């Protein structure tokens, strides 16, 4: 197990190298000059050159990339070109906000998704099953940004029940903060919820057809005990795999959701940074996304072993 973990950790290195090289090249190939964005209306070439030198933008690209790598190894992502703030500090808060949103969405998606899946699997081919699955297909198909806008329109503009943007306000109570969370979390949860529902349903159906379920029924166990103690546990593996993958979807989905709801997270920071050509922020957020993705996959693999004792890593 230790060897396996070490191997997995080491595999992060080529992944990161690849991702940063691609991102680095892409942002430098794109037109647009961060220095000019920073200088605004009065662009003075002399001062611009000085700023360029200060930020190391006058060096060859390869050198700039190597400098980035050197700093990255030390956990330093450089300074924002536009705000002058250390990237780690700036993205640290944002990352926390994104995690908060994504985990909340994940919890909603898992609970509701599995519930819908189980209910549908209980009565296959029934009207209830069809209804649930139609909802699931709709959930997967609806674009996140559209759903977000619609929810804002209905719950914010029409009913005035929930705030439509931002994460918190100065002096806000816990309840007020929670209200800010509801709409973006539900929006973000929709796609994974639908997918989890479908996987749960098919996985449950498969398990429910197994001999041991029949045996359990034969020995007189109640439906609840069969589902939760016997069926669900065995149906979990594919569900966990999907949940792991979902997490990546949540992170990327967060970019859109955060933009729609003005949620101060990593996704929105990245979009803003692209709009300003703030290279260190773009690179930093992509790197953070990549690391999170790899780590989540690793955690999922470990959970496999825990759920299913037959799985052993060497």
């Amino acid at each position, binding site marked *: 197990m230790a060897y396996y973990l070490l191997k997995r950790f080491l595999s992060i290195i080529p992944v990161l190298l690849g991702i940063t090289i691609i991102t680095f090249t892409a942002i430098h190939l794109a*037109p647009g000059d961060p220095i000019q964005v920073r200088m*605004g209306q009065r*662009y003075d070439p002399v001062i611009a050159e000085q700023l360029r030198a200060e930020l190391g933008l006058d060096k060859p690209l390869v050198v700039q990339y190597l400098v980035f790598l050197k700093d990255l190894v030390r956990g330093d992502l450089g300074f924002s070109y536009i705000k002058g703030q250390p990237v780690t500090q700036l993205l640290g808060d944002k990352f926390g906000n994104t995690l908060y949103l994504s985990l909340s969405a994940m919890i909603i998606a898992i609970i509701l998704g599995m519930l819908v899946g189980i209910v549908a699997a209980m009565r296959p081919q029934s009207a209830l099953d069809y209804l649930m699955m139609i909802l699931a297909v709709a959930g997967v198909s609806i674009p996140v940004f559209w759903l977000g806008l619609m929810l804002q329109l209905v719950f914010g503009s029409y009913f005035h029940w929930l705030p439509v943007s931002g994460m918190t306000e100065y002096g806000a109570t816990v309840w007020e903060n929670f209200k800010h969370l509801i709409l973006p979390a539900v929006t973000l949860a929709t796609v994974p919820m639908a997918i989890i529902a479908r996987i749960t349903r098919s996985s449950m159906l498969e398990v429910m057809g197994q001999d041991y379920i029949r045996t359990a029924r034969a020995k007189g166990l109640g439906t609840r005990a069969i589902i939760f103690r016997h069926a669900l546990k065995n149906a979990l593996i594919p569900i966990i795999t999907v949940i792991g993958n979902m997490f990546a979807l949540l992170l990327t989905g967060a970019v859109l959701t955060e933009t729609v709801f003005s949620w101060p997270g990593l996704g929105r920071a990245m979009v803003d940074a692209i709009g300003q050509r703030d290279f260190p922020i773009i690179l930093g957020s992509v790197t953070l996304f990549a690391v999170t993705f790899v780590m989540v996959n690793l955690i999922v693999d470990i959970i496999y072993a825990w759920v299913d004792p037959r799985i052993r890593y060497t």
Partner: protein
Amino acid sequence: MAPQPFRVFSGLLAAVVAICVAASLLVAAGSLGSCTKTEPETATTPVGQTGGTLRLPLDADVLTLDPIHIIDVRSSAVARQIYSTLVRFDKDLQLVPDLAENWDVSPDGLRFTFYLKKGAKFHSGREVTAKDFVNSFTRLANLDEASERANLLRDVVGYHEFRERNADCLTGVSAPERYSFQIQLSKPYSPFLTTLAMINFAVVPCEEADVDAEDQHYDFANHPVGSGPFKLVDWQTGSSIRLEANVDYFEGAPFLDAVLYKVIPDVEAQFKAYADGELDATNIPVGKLREVSKDEAYRGQFHHKDLLAVQFYVFNMDKEPWKDRLFSSKKTLRQALNYAVNREYIVEEILEGRCEPLTGIIPPALTEWYNPAIRDEPRYRYDVNEARRLLEVSGHPQGMFFPETTRLLYNDFSVQPDIASQIEDFFRDVSVKGKRQAADFPTFVEKIREGDFIVARGDCVADYPDPDVFLWRLLASENSGAYGNWARWRNDEFDTLVEQARAELDPGKRRLLYWQAERIALEEAPWLFLFTQTVNILLKPEVKGIAISGMDIDASFPNNDLSRVFIMRADVN
């Protein structure tokens, strides 16, 4: 109540001094008239009306609150409440004292001496002295601080030596006494006094701001310490900024308890928040202006003001077909296109009357400098036949012999695509093939800098109320390129006139020089002259004391001192 008499007194004193000074010399006419007009902006006495939080929208988050790095209106709007400058502008854009009690200028216009108000304190509690201004100005010029706006000091004695590290301080600024601060210029520059109201010249306590460590550099921007009416207490990056009253403010404690800025990029969302009572002011979304301005529900809340702003498209004079040659000026071609565009139509159909056709270069909101003759007899009116005739004269009959399609480069926001598309249509009416070319902001500005465009959209919102902004920065040949003269237009006669105007101390003469220069630019048509701009906002009727000026470009009121603003509550009479 204490603040009121104090302000009146300081206003009178300033007026007397200014009049004396006027006898001997002079600075911009604007600055003179100003001092005699310093009245408190609040007409109503706010008995029992102190307190409360004013909630204003910001289109985008503030980039920095370190004054030497501020380049944008939003940062400036917030920073204006935190810091003080020597002088500032009132609602009529007249120069009035801020931290300077009064000032005098030497007869040659080269030496400025400011006498500071005594007892003003930084938020840290320390007194503001002339030494702080010396340090703050030096900080702005300091190469190591890498200020984007250092060149605002380029006419100050010793600037170049200091920048080139041949001197260890900025010799042109000094503090002869504890409360007097002196600036020496190397050549006369009339608008200089006016530029000092820019937020970049704010006084900062250097013990807080000057930190060598790289990451601390940012710290001051995030934890600003000024001497203005409000202090920063909370900044949720990307969502809100909260300022609270500085009770030790040298003009007396602000009436408000706090100002809360909410970052809401979408104007529709701002408008909604206002309607829901979550904001005290809002900008008005595209397409809603006419409806809102007439809506009974918003009666008494709608405010409208001409801005010190112009919009235009520039012809890239380094590119064909606009390029002038020794014996063949292409001005008739550029004039032709100026006749081809129906500005009134765009103003009505696309801009909902938010703009007015631009007849000159100095906008009407700059009242003292504006040339009314240009409004009465505009150089260009919509006239397709004249446009066709001039096209023929310029050697392009029927729009022929253009080297390529005339691409219209613009940065993609708001109604810009519609305007570009409409101009494309007007060009087509005179057989000139135009094609819109959208770009996001960073790409757009890079193309401008590289000169990689044929025609490009341009605009300018004055950062100080002086014709210098429009005529010198946007059109003088020394500013060719990204600094302001995007058209890369070069005209010796124009340059000479503007240079003279910059050095001229007599406002009357200066005005005439600018008017002459303006005529030349209109005749030579390096731009497609389009519109002047207005600001249109809704403000809750209970908010009193905000006076919208020609530099308040949106509902964050960047040119307003919010210290005398109060919220009238229904429960108090």
